[in-house]
């Protein structure tokens, strides 16, 4: 294994126990159900999926914020699945997380200076003021912001502070969970550009967890599509966006509205909702909503297999070929 592998998840599962009313029986939410996932140096991997797909849970398992139910987590070539407490500190220097809601993830009673000092302290370092100012400068803020408190900032600025905090320990990999979904469109673009700049300047790699496929297309060079706790398709972003092989990816992409009045689009409107991850369908998790589903789909869950021999892989018995994409699916169903 080369050290170029910043993150390697092997057959990771994460189940959550269900606690209902005392007189009802408990079950388990299979949030992540057998995922293999690799991030190499220099990559920006988009992890997309709808609510309940398990993408955020996967991000938390990858950053060791959650313990996996099964499988292993390797960070920087080292198995850290069982590493806990203090011993996690060197791991945290390699991988950091940026959260969706900067309002909730910054302590309102701490000044920006204190917020930025905390990650240094965790590594046993006393940062100089110059170091803190440099962090702020990297995210487009300045020295005058050091003494202020989170409530004095706008949403976009708060997200910059969240990014600066993650950068403090000079990580190789930043896992961003919906970093722009709470922001206004005009501010969202600023943060996306900042992420791109940091990648170029600091050589950072990213896992970008998002539900907005347009946002991911703008920054990711690799894409992984999740559905009901599994990755159903992954590959180079350009390839997946232009020629999605999984019917789900195709439907997902076709559903995103485009700011182009009168644009003719072959929209595939899926019927129904994502099934519950407590009791997912047998075989292919997508078969209950799939316009191509046949009997075989209900038998064994399809595994990721290369499309046309490349890095592009899809878990489907009947993947779309580029020829299919020019015409709408035969059995398009509408509600």
């Amino acid at each position, binding site marked *: 294994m080369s050290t170029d592998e910043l993150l390697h998840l092997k057959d990771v599962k994460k189940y959550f126990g269900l606690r*209902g*009313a*005392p*007189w*009802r029986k408990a079950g388990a939410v299979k949030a992540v159900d057998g995922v293999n996932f690799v991030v190499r140096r220099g990559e920006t991997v988009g992890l997309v999926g709808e609510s309940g797909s398990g993408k955020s849970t996967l991000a938390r398992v990858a950053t060791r914020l959650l313990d996996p139910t099964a499988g292993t987590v390797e960070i920087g070539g080292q198995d850290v699945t069982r590493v806990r407490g203090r011993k996690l500190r060197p791991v945290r220097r390699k991988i950091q997380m940026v959260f969706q809601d900067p309002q909730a993830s910054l302590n309102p009673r701490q000044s920006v200076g204190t917020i930025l000092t905390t990650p240094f302290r965790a590594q046993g370092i006393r940062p100089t003021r110059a170091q803190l100012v440099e962090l702020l400068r990297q995210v487009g803020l300045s020295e005058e912001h050091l003494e202020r408190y989170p409530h004095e900032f706008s949403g976009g600025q708060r997200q910059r502070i969240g990014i600066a905090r993650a950068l403090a320990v000079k990580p190789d990999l930043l896992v961003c969970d919906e970093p722009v979904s709470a922001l206004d469109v005009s501010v969202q673009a600023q943060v996306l550009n900042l992420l791109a700049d940091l990648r170029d300047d600091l050589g950072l790699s990213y896992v970008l967890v998002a539900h907005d496929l347009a946002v991911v297309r703008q920054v990711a060079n690799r894409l992984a599509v999740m559905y009901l706790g599994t990755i159903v398709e992954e590959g180079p972003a350009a390839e997946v966006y232009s020629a999605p092989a999984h019917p789900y990816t195709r439907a997902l992409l076709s559903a995103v509205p485009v700011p182009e009045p009168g644009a003719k689009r072959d929209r595939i409107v899926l019927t129904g909702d994502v099934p519950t991850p407590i009791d997912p369908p047998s075989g292919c998790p997508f078969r209950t909503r799939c316009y191509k589903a046949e009997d075989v789909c209900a038998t064994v869950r399809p595994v990721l297999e290369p499309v046309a021999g490349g890095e592009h892989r899809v878990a489907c018995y009947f993947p779309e070929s580029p020829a299919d994409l020019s015409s709408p699916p035969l059995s398009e169903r509408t509600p």
Partner: protein
Amino acid sequence: MPDLLWFVLRRLFATVLVMLALSLAVYLIFYALPADPARLACGKPCTPDRLEQARHFMQLDQSVIQQYLAFLKGIFAGRTFGEGAAAVQCNAPCFGYSFPLARPVTTLIVDRLPVTLSIAIGAAVLWLLLGVTLGVGAALKRGKLFDRLAVGFALIGIATPSFLLGLLAILVFGFWLNMVPVNGYVPLTESPVDWAWHLITPWLVLATIQAAAYIRLTRAQMLEEMNLDHITTARAKGAGERRVVAVHGLRGVLVPIVTIFGLDLGALLGGAILTEKVFSMQGLGELLISAVGQLDVAVVVGVTLFSAFLVILANLVVDVVHGVLDPRVGHA
């Protein structure tokens, strides 16, 4: 619903275990006390012979575990203290025998219960009405005079000890204005009017104290509820303000109020000690207090267990009612 039945059965089973543990704990605590109930019963002068006789009669010469087991057996089979003509019979369910009062504990509790029930239930109805009405009013008139008065009233209610308020009420309404009787209890079966007339002051005193918490709780819940999106939806549907409050706002406040109410009532049924003392009412609280003074272990254990049972039962009822009132309970 079979789910619910199972839940209730499981909880009742747990209740039995808790009661067992509790009764044992109470026994151990009183056994550890340096005082000797037999000495009190033996009177003065008390020869060692007589003391030993008394001990034997009261079965205090046995080990604590033996006494406890005898107590448990008594619940199902009844007990007999002493032998022959002097024997004292305590029929099942026997929760012990009070020698100072020369009555079985079960009889004592059953005798005293109507008094406590009358005080507690009457006061509860009053404070619920008072608390919820004032609380809702205060929330709807937030910041206005009504709100300030209601919140001020609540503050006074919370800050005033019940015996002080009780004594004041007796002084003002009983002696100065001579409007109400100052003490005593008339059974409901004897004369409903006299019953209520004798209880009106304790009811008002207890209700004032308790309503305070309900005003604050209702006000806070109502303010929160009226800010929720579904209230705006109700208005957007074309519901009038009165309907919005009564049908949509109050519905959400009901759940926490009922929860607290059930627990409060359960606790109060075990005896409103101070109120009963102040108004000289022979309720369960008064029974417990005098029993403690006389080291009447049997009564203390009996009343304590009975109160604990009421609290546990109230918890169970509240849980079930909660599930009925809030459709979201019982789902992931």
